[in-house]
């Protein structure tokens, strides 16, 4: 192959130098990217492969559906609560179980809390260092840093003395040789654009966010009974409400409601005064680096989430937008039906699984997960040590999910694009305001920077929504409604002999759904399609490339030996997998290693 046009309109050229990312293992959550660059070091072909968890059905088959959440909660260390919520929704959908309004509010607060926590931690602790140069921060003038901080926000921690102390602490840390989280950076890379003062300000907020994130998750402890693995319940939430209670260990009383309330206030303040101003300040130095859009300007999907009304999952009730946009047509948002076998399908033509007929996709209710590890004829290396993948053959442990045959991007940017297209003021107005502040056109949204900015906007939105549902909950409790669970259909004897259902959420990193089949009160089949399956998907039978692959296309690299641009763009998706990147020379010799999350 020299040049190939994909149906989703990307021009692939794999004739140039190949850059390889990470050794391929089946270790949970590792991924690898291979790209070809042309003589100007511009990416002309991208291949993404992952080793996601797989085969949850093997573990869940024959178990009690009411326990499925506890298993799915363990799939991943960062998507914990959202998997559990998706699971209880799937079981409730299958068995026709409704939940009380208070349970809906508490679940929404839990889910929104996860969004706020995950977005904040993603930006400061997993992504910021793709934009912020720690070493450069050591050269900053604390007075100038203070002036910069005060010009962008009224956040009180901004004195010259504060930044000077921090700089001394940071210098000691760096000089001790224990770089810890900072040790894998490409410090001094040409793709870093911030002045030292902006870098120092960002590092200060990195540490403040690290401290603050611990407060946010206390909400999970209060409503989930415990952390780090909160409890969930089919039919509602497992916490009892007793406002007058003072002694009981686990009941929600006034004191606990007030604690949640004060944490929500602090979330709103931190997002508005620290996170968003930082994104604007950093973004203003990267306005001309608008690469990484990939599928976002073409096809995006959001299932929607955060039901206003308990048990109503219609687009109207869901506060996060629901719908699909295809081929960049923002004038039409198409409806989604999780139960329609013609809509969501998973393909395995390029994945290490076996179907009876691999030209066709399977709807998750009929999903099959049978491993078939074989490599294409052009693979370089061996089955246990792959030097270069052959993307013409099977090349990933991730299946290729498609919506009516289309590859789509999911995540905060997809949600904001769908909300924007639907003219929802809650999503459109903040987006336009941010673009105006940065002096950028709407088209700038379709980029790595756009993905990072949408996440920050959503974090602020989610913090305010937590306030909304907390107030709603308290008002109902004051009116005398303390119901948190519906146990009418708790007993398996009340269930039909066979049932099937689905549940969906918008996880911080994108659309997540579980499909369940129940037979004789036990799980018969269980399939999860997770956000990183959508974004990290390999090619499909028609040759459409997935969102990670598309996002890397046409990006110029300052130095292929230090692939900062690849990391920046892949990180902007908040992939739920840690990955190490190995950059190899054309003869396969390892040149550099980088840790990625």
């Amino acid at each position: 192959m020299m040049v190939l046009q994909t149906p989703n309109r990307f021009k692939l050229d794999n004739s140039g130098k190949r850059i390889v990312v990470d050794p391929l293992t089946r270790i949970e959550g590792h991924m690898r990217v291979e790209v070809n660059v042309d003589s100007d070091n511009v990416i002309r072909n991208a291949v993404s492969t992952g080793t996601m968890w797989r085969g949850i059905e093997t573990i869940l088959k024959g178990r009690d559906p009411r326990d499925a959440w506890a298993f799915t909660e363990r799939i991943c260390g960062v998507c914990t609560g959202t998997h559990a919520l998706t699971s209880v929704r799937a079981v409730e959908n299958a068995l026709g179980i409704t939940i009380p309004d208070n349970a809906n509010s508490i679940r929404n607060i839990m889910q929104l809390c996860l969004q706020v926590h995950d977005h904040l931690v993603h930006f400061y602790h997993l992504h910021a260092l793709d934009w912020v140069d720690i070493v450069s921060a050591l050269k900053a003038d604390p007075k100038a840093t203070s002036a910069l901080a005060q010009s962008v926000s009224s956040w009180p921690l901004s004195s010259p003395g504060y930044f000077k102390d921090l700089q001394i602490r940071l210098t000691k840390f760096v000089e001790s040789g224990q770089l810890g989280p900072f040790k894998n950076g490409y410090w001094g890379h040409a793709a870093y654009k911030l002045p030292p003062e902006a870098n120092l300000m960002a590092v200060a907020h990195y540490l403040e966010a690290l401290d603050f994130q611990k407060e946010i998750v206390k909400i999970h402890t209060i409503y989930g009974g415990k952390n780090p693995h909160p409890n969930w319940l089919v039919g509602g939430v497992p916490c009892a409400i007793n406002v007058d209670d003072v002694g009981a260990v686990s009941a929600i009383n006034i004191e606990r409601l007030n604690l949640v309330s004060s944490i929500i206030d602090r979330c709103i303040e931190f997002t508005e005064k620290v996170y968003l101003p930082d994104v604007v300040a950093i973004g203003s130095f990267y306005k001309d680096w608008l690469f990484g859009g990939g599928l976002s300007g073409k096809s995006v999907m959001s299932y929607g989430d955060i039901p206003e009304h308990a048990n109503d999952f219609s687009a109207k009730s869901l506060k996060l937008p629901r719908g699909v946009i295809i081929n960049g047509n923002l004038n039409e948002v198409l409806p989604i039906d999780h139960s329609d076998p013609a809509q969501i399908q998973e393909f395995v033509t390029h994945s290490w699984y076996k179907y009876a007929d691999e030209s066709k996709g399977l709807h998750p209710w009929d999903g099959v997960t049978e491993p078939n590890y074989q490599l294409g004829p052009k693979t370089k290396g061996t089955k246990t040590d792959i030097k270069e993948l052959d993307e013409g053959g099977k090349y990933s442990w991730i299946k290729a999910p498609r919506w009516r045959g289309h590859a789509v991007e999911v995540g905060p940017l997809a949600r904001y694009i769908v909300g924007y297209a639907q003219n929802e003021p809650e999503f459109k107005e903040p987006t336009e305001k941010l673009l105006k502040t940065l002096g950028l056109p709407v088209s700038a949204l379709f980029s790595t920077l756009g993905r990072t900015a949408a996440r920050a906007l959503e974090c602020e939105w989610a913090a305010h929504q937590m306030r909304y549902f907390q107030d709603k909950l308290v008002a109902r409790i004051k009116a005398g409604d303390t119901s948190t669970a519906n146990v009418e259909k708790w007993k398996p004897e009340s269930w039909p002999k066979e049932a099937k259902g689905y549940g969906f959420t918008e996880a911080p990193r994108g659309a997540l759904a579980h499909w369940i089949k129940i037979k004789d009160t036990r799980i018969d089949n269980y399939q999860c399609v997770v956000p990183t399956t959508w974004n990290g998907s390999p090619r499909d039978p028609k040759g459409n490339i997935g969102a990670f692959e598309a996002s890397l296309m046409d990006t110029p690299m300052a130095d292929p030996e230090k692939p900062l641009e690849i990391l920046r763009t892949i990180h902007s998706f908040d992939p739920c997998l840690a990955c190490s990147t190995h950059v190899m020379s054309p003869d396969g010799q390892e040149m550099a290693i980088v840790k990625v999350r």
Partner: protein
Amino acid sequence: MPKILVLGTGNILWADEGFGVRVVEEFHRRYAVPDNVTILDGGTQGLYLVSYLEEADRLIVFDAIDYGLEPGQLRLVRDDEVPKFTGAKKMSLHQTGFQEVLSAAELLGRCPQHLTLIGCQPLDLKDWGGPLTGPVRDQIEPAIGLACELLAQWGSPAIPRSEPLPELERLLANDIDHFHYEMRVEPA
């Protein structure tokens, strides 16, 4: 009294990778500890664990560790050696996770003064949904023994319960406790 955190980390869905969690589960089932000791199932949680670390003066962590030894060998390392082992190239699958937690606590200036890692060399980390392998399962008991010795040295001895905890009060429930988790309809 020093505050002590007894932590188990790992993914119970990945065979021997679940070692750390299964040790704290069993320890908690059979032993009562004084109020200054917290027993925690950390799973694969990353930064969520920082606050627990910060509150602790001393840490005992159980984990599946690739020491390059024979499968099922148990090894205890302390203090400065701990980050070195959680940072070595071939480590347990969530190594970056826990190493990050340690360095985050350090960056905040609130890392426990004493760290003890009780690690077991795994045999199989790839068997999705699989049980602990025999050699690793056999080390749960000795690992608990090491922790008991340490706690006694630190003046906070664990006391054997007269009867094991009832199911509802255990660390893991909803069918993911060690016994029920390994009762499978079909082998992986």
